[in-house]
């Protein structure tokens, strides 16, 4: 413990939380120096990417889990940060996506001549968001998880209402009130859990929650699921999402779509495996997953605007992950983990491409778009690849993820699981239909003669100007990453399998956090 260098993994683990917060403070102090802000943000997030990769390698090569007691307080008193394969994988995917979106938004800011104006607050807020996401993934303490959620939500409120236009204030109001409500539900759950068990340490809870009255346990479990369900946009609690996301600036929508709901999914995974194992809510989650998939995708089919269509597919595909979690088997969980990694990348990419489309044509309404394949072939390629990936065309990662989940459902064999498998296939086909409709109308057909002018969504300010390379490059990089996930699907599924095995076994997590096992030294 004394040798700082021999102890590098322990220094590494808090970095994804601490570094963006420091950088946020710095960029706030340097609010008038746009170039310095940019350098600091990009550097900080690049280091976070490297640290996250190191954490993943360390956890996967090592014993699978390691924890750091922040401030040197032992886990039962203080707050531990815990990395297991699941959190490390989430951390890597989220940090890569965050960095790519940051570069994209920088280029957009430069191109649109926003030097200094309203976005001096953009960098600090964005970095705080990134810190909040990392904190939520790494937290080994339920109350610290709540704090992580609040950090990222507070940042997201500001990003969503950036500029304070009429549409954004309206969308932001719904979003803020719904998110606050979900936080209140979560907080109530924490209060009741503390009353019932006397701890908020997740490793300790996993033991103590088994000892309390089963009825009380069920109430606590459902409260947590409702709180996380709102954040993850699971069907009956999802109506806020397609309403509020599309009005934000493209990079903001992209990072929200990729990360925020997945933090909710991550929290649901932890709830189902670590805190409340035994599957008492699995049947409920199955039905919820089915409803989420179908209602979401039917909404997507009916949409007339690319951003709204994508928001609905986002809701719909959360259903796949919930399905995997509800199966409760190793195969189901591993499929869900893989799907989260795939979906973060693909959904973010699609929103970024839509931002490019909006910039090119001035609108994202299907009535106004047309013949983009001819006018902007590069955009067409950038849209096409992640779009078919989302729909799950073989051999792309969306197909592999869905296949994994459907196989897990078939292995389960119960009638309900088969219903879900059928629902998953139907959802996949309908996603393809929604994507094909968008593709036909926006990229192949000529635009309608008289575009309908009613209540369209926000339109870009600079139409027809050349799309800057700084926006295309990160988008292309993410497209490549999405395809790359296909190439490394084998190793990635390996990590997901091992993560799922650890999640089900639970003891790796609890014994590491509570130091029941001799802590391993060095890599």
């Amino acid at each position, binding site marked *: 413990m004394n040798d700082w260098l021999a102890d590098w993994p322990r220094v590494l683990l808090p970095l994804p939380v601490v570094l963006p917060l420091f950088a946020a403070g710095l960029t706030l102090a340097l609010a008038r120096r746009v170039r310095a802000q940019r350098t600091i943000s990009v550097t900080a997030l690049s280091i976070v990417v490297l640290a996250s990769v190191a954490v993943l390698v360390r956890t996967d090569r090592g014993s699978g889990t390691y924890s750091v007691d922040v401030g040197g307080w032992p886990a039962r008193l203080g707050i531990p940060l815990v990395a297991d394969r699941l959190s490390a994988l989430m951390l890597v995917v989220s940090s890569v996506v965050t960095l790519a979106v940051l570069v994209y938004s920088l280029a957009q800011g430069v191109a649109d001549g926003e030097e200094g104006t309203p976005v001096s607050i953009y960098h600090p807020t964005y970095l705080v968001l990134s810190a909040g996401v990392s904190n939520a993934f790494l937290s080994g303490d339920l*109350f610290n998880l709540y*704090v992580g959620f*609040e950090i990222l939500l*507070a940042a997201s*409120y*500001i990003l969503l*209402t950036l500029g*304070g236009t*009429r*549409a954004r*204030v*309206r969308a*932001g*109001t*719904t979003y*803020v*009130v719904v998110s*606050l*409500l979900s936080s*209140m539900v979560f*907080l*109530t759950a*924490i*209060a*009741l859990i*503390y*009353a019932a068990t006397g701890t*908020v340490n997740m490793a300790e809870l996993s033991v103590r929650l088994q000892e309390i009255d089963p009825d009380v346990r069920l109430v606590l479990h459902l409260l947590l699921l409702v709180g996380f369900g709102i954040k993850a946009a699971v069907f009956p609690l999802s109506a806020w999402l397609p*309403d509020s996301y599309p009005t934000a600036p493209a990079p903001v929508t992209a990072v929200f779509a990729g990360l925020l709901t997945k933090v909710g999914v991550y929290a649901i995974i932890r709830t189902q495996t670590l805190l409340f194992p035994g599957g008492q809510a699995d049947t409920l989650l199955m039905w919820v997953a089915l409803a989420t998939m179908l209602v979401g995708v039917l909404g997507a089919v*009916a*949409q*007339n605007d690319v951003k*709204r269509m994508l928001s609905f597919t986002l809701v719909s595909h959360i259903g796949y992950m919930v399905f995997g979690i509800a199966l409760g088997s190793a195969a189901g969980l591993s499929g869900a983990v893989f799907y989260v990694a795939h979906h973060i990348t693909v959904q973010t990419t699609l929103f970024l491409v839509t931002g490019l489309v909006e910039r090119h044509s001035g609108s994202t309404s299907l*009535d106004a778009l047309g013949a983009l394949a001819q006018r902007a072939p590069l955009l067409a390629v950038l849209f096409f690849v992640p779009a078919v990936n989302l729909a799950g065309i073989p051999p792309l990662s969306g197909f592999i993820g869905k296949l994994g989940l459907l196989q897990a459902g078939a292995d389960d064999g119960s009638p309900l699981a088969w219903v879900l498998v059928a629902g998953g296939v139907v959802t996949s086909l309908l996603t393809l239909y929604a994507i094909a409709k968008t593709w036909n109308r926006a990229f192949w057909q000529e635009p309608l003669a008289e575009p*309908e002018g*009613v*209540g369209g*969504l926000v339109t870009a300010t600079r139409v027809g100007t050349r799309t800057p390379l700084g926006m295309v490059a990160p988008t292309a990089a993410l497209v490549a990453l999405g395809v790359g996930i296909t190439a490394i699907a084998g190793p990635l599924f390996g990590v997901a399998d091992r993560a799922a095995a650890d999640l089900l076994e639970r003891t790796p997590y609890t014994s590491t956090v509570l130091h029941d096992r001799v802590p391993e030294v060095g890599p």
Partner: protein
Amino acid sequence: MSPNLTLVLVSGVLVATGVALLLERTLTRVLVGIVLLGNGINVLFLVAGGRPGGAPILGVTRAEDMSDPLPQAMVLTAIVITLGMVAFILALAYRSWQLDGHDEVQDDVEDRRIVRRAELDETSASYDDDAREAP
């Protein structure tokens, strides 16, 4: 341990009034609702803390007379967070009033469009015109 009934009742009343206000359309009332709701939950944390006792400081109170400090620390955090959120919602309500002269939460753009179409008896924008011409 039996919980303090007064605190439980206070918490219940605060949460109930908070939820009632949260269902209003005016953002200012929603704001008051969130404040009440938040305080109701804070009181719930005090219930969760168990029996009352002296300040948990070594040398001031004997260990067995101390109150549980952890829920109080959590309440403190929650109060700070709620304060920040309240400030933000106030700013949002003010901005909404600046733009529109009121702070009522509007319906979704799509919802309003559908209502208008229903009133005019029009078809949806995603309705296929060619299908209508087919025999």
